[in-house]
């Protein structure tokens, strides 16, 4: 069994607090993998657990869903019923974006711009 702190605990504290206790069969499998990877067993385990934990935090855990109080949900309903263009501050900033990028000397390396492509 591998143990690591929950995503919430990780968010609140330092990731180095994670424990690296594993059972024998996992240890043996990891030892073989570590040997191939040229790492010490503890280092390999640490990296494997870290990778899983970080994956949980950034790619599984959706903090938005933890908004639970009536007040928070009411706020969220109102916010999601509004439109993108309703927020004047954001709209003004976005209008200024191309000018800001030009002045800072920022350009795209290629024509590839789309997200998740």
């Amino acid at each position, binding site marked *: 069994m591998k143990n690591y702190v929950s995503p919430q605990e990780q968010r609140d504290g330092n990731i180095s607090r994670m424990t690296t206790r594993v059972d024998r069969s996992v240890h043996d499998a990891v030892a073989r993998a570590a040997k191939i990877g040229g790492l010490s067993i503890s280092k390999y385990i640490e990296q494997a657990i870290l990778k899983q934990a970080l994956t949980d935090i950034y790619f599984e855990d959706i903090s*938005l869903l933890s908004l639970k109080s009536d007040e928070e949900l009411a706020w969220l309903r109102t916010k999601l019923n509004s439109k*993108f263009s309703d927020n004047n501050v954001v709209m003004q900033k976005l209008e200024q974006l191309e000018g800001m990028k030009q002045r800072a000397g920022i350009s795209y390396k290629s024509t590839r711009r789309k997200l998740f492509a």
Partner: protein
Amino acid sequence: MQESHTSQLVENSSHNQFQLCHFDELSPSQLKSRKDFKLEEQYLNIYKAFLSILPDKELRKRKPYTVLYLTSHEKIVGFVVLKLIQNLPNVFKKKVGLPSKTDAIQICFLAVDLGFRGQNLGEMLLLEALSLSKEYASDNPECSVLFLQAADETAAKFYEKYGLERPKNSLDFVYPLHD
């Protein structure tokens, strides 16, 4: 005339201080520079661990995400990670009155190297992420929510400065992507 236009383009291109690009467009030395990215102590461990999961082809198949890098010559000076959350859980959609098929975009990591702060690069990365998210939502109408969780109150103040809003006593920012 054509020659003069071309030399003008070359001149503009060499003048450009910064470039925005995706992971597979980074040069070998820019890739290497990821390890030298300078951040405040409290974010450094998370950043280093983050390096180990990005990019991960298997993860990308399961969870679509984009990392947009801001580079200067051979160095990475900033980046923003956006992930697509396909079809939010039904219970949640029901609670807040969202349509049955609703996707969301999360800005899950935005950082500028300590040596390049004070040039509004973080602001431009954030606005670029907002702009690209809006474009994505226009092409994919089921994607109608953008959210991010600030790391702490200091980061939250940064997002508020650019018009993003959050519920009282929360670090979760939410923004509608539809018009």
